[in-house]
């Protein structure tokens, strides 16, 4: 017959062991807690103020003269056209062409203003437009047409963008720029950015040599795109 000899110390230890074993058996719980994030690369831009060239007189080109072509390889190529250059300081320069003529007569003048909002904070964004003046692309042109019955047309191009508010263009017009036709900027700490825009209006051949542009309002538009 086997005999086991236990001391009181052994007894106490065994009793304690039984109790702890019961306590720890199921005293855990595990969950799968969730993590979420939303990728939202949409970015909004809206015009708060349109581009205003004020009042002017202008005559069209001779039929043999090249129209205003706008920016090509950074250097504007005005052809033989006269043009109106909108400046950052709310002024307009009128420059005569070969036979075409232009002059300003006051009125409301000023750069366009765009607001970018809802973007990522302190984040680089890119602004593009076919009419941007840059180093290595041919800028597109947009018709700016009279609202009268003659539908006289000027050509808008040479778009410049100021993204830092200090009255100069951030267009990539320097040598070595590899990202032509794109203007870079950075949103502020709230994801917002204000951009101003200026450009140039060129005279065209109106069908009759050196015809005076029809009096009245002229309107047109250009597309400005913002992306990350």
């Amino acid at each position, binding site marked *: *017959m*086997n*005999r*086991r*000899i*236990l*001391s*009181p110390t*052994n*007894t*106490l230890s*065994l*009793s304690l062991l*039984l*109790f702890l*074993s*019961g*306590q*720890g*058996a*199921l*005293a*855990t*719980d*595990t*969950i*799968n*807690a*969730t*993590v*979420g*994030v*939303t*990728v*939202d*690369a*949409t970015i909004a831009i809206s015009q708060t103020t349109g581009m205003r060239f004020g009042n002017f007189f202008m005559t069209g080109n001779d039929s043999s003269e090249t129209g205003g072509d706008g920016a090509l390889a950074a250097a504007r190529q005005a052809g033989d056209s006269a043009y109106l250059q909108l400046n950052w300081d709310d002024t307009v320069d009128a420059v005569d062409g070969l036979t075409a003529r232009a002059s300003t007569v006051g009125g409301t003048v000023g750069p366009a203003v765009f607001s970018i909002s*809802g*973007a*990522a*904070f*302190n*984040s680089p964004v890119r602004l593009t437009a076919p009419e941007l003046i840059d180093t290595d692309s041919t800028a597109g042109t947009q018709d700016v047409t009279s609202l009268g019955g003659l539908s006289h047309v000027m050509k808008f191009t040479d778009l410049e963008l100021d993204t830092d508010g200090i009255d100069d263009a951030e267009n990539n017009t320097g040598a070595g720029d590899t990202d032509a036709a794109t203007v870079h900027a950075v949103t502020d700490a709230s*994801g917002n950015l204000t951009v101003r825009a200026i450009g140039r209006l060129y005279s065209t051949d109106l069908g009759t040599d050196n015809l005076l542009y029809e009096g009245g309002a002229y309107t047109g538009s250009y597309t400005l795109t913002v992306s*990350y």
Partner: protein
Amino acid sequence: MKTVITKVSARQVLASLLGLSLSSGLFAGADTGTIDANSVSALAMSQSQGMLFGRVVAVGNAGGEIPAGGSLALGIAPNPGNSASIVMDLTGALALGVGLTASINNLDTTGTLGTINVTGGEANTVVRFSSPQMLDFDIEASTAPIADGVSGDVFHFTDLIMDTDTPLDGVMNNPTISDGYCCVGTVEGTTDVSGNLTVTTAGRLYTVELAAPNQTYTNAGYTGSYELTVSY
């Protein structure tokens, strides 16, 4: 004095042993004792608020950038590799980590902490939280995918930190080297007088290489989960 037990049943042995402990070691014949074992299996945990990083814009890693999810919490300091990251602290504040070519930017100022409720515990008792994604001082935290489930684009979540103080103080209770902490990968908390405890969680999301180098993350809601265990 010695106690001698002959051939008896286990029940009798236990009863005898308890009898000994209650009778100051004096054994005077067999008796039937009772056993009271209290299994506290009621310890439970549930999430009342998921962790949310808000809205971001992100560009994935380029090919060859390490890793396809830079995301190892090793030696307390997260090792992001070449990934970009967005990290939330236990106040909900968001900060960005710059990648090599990857990027991430936030559209919201703050995120939302995860909130976990422990109930049914012992009163005023230390409980331990563990997770494979836990940031600590000597293990490599694993990652949990956070995906939109459609595009295949994915972030990696890891570097889990926890605030287990009562009241919550916005500071992580994860062990650090200077703590001399005994149990890596474990964060401790203490239940209240009712056996309950509320903790908050935060962590970090890393970019990975997507289907193409430096591809922009697809617009969508991304979700995933991390495993969290509570025990005594």
